[in-house]
């Protein structure tokens, strides 16, 4: 799990530059005493909703051996996701047989 993303850093930098006295991003709600900050529009970082997959053999040519992946095995079927790729998407809406799931990063 990563806890922030590059686009957010840019968004925050623009908040910081906007005013002489930086106010920070707007708070949309408070949960358990801690604010939920809004830093980007929903979907600004595009989650993958209709993922497509390649075979391991095809993937092996595109992947570095040490490239970090997240992997799941459901009903005997294995799916892997490059974490470098997930940096730009954060969420993949996936399904194996009857199990709908989201790989999140």
């Amino acid at each position, binding site marked *: 799990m990563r*806890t922030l993303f590059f686009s957010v850093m840019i968004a925050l930098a623009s908040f910081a530059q906007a005013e002489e006295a930086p106010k920070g991003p707007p708070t949309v709600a408070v949960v358990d005493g*801690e604010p939920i900050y809004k830093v980007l529009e929903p979907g600004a970082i595009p989650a993958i909703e209709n993922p497509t997959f390649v075979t391991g053999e*095809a993937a092996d040519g595109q992947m570095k051996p040490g490239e970090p992946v997240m992997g799941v095995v459901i009903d005997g079927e*294995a799916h892997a996701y490059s974490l*470098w790729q997930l940096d730009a998407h954060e969420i993949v809406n996936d399904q194996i047989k009857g199990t709908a*799931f*989201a790989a*999140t990063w």
Partner: protein
Amino acid sequence: MVYARTVGTKKLTLIVSGMLWRDSLIMMDKESGSLWSHVLGKAVKGPMEGSTLEMLPSAQTTWAAWYKAHPKTKLLAKSKAVTSSHYQGYFDDPEKMGIFRARRIVTQMPGKALVWGVAQGPHAAALTDEAVGASKVNAFSLGDGAVIALEGADGGVRAFVARADGRTLNLGYDEKGILRDDTTSTAWNPTTGVALRGKLAGTQLEELPVTRVYWFAWSSFYPNTVVID
């Protein structure tokens, strides 16, 4: 982290809300617009507030180790050549922890230390890389339950409830490198938690999801976490 995205009979499509809570991702489902904490898997705002997503086991490892252990795997197609992380600077900088100041950080180890986190309800453990080297079995308790954590054949760390057939199992590697429990001498697969041979053959240990996570983030969500190093 991997979550089932069906709640009751409703299948959700999860997107990135653009919001942050406790320095971590808030997801939004397109169907109801509810806001979901990425770390807790729980709706914290919106029509589905209070609902939870079931976390599913997953492994974080390298492509080479994953592919070797799962030769029939498929890989999410890469839309363009992605050859490194966008965030390497962030990963490499020991001072950068979250966007805002980290709150409630527990200072047992550097905030940017990567740990393997396991939680069950309010109980949590964080294991260091040193603790989970090859052929090591970490036995500990989460609440009342006995748990083991160990490295699977694909390099990912797995955790299992060390209980089967109504008894708590004391698991370890024998001299041949086979994972066994010393009560029934059953041989277990360390990657899947399935009993291979022996009295309990065919039994599946309950698997607990393991999260690869920075210490500052884990300790922020689970300030009472046990550290195993």
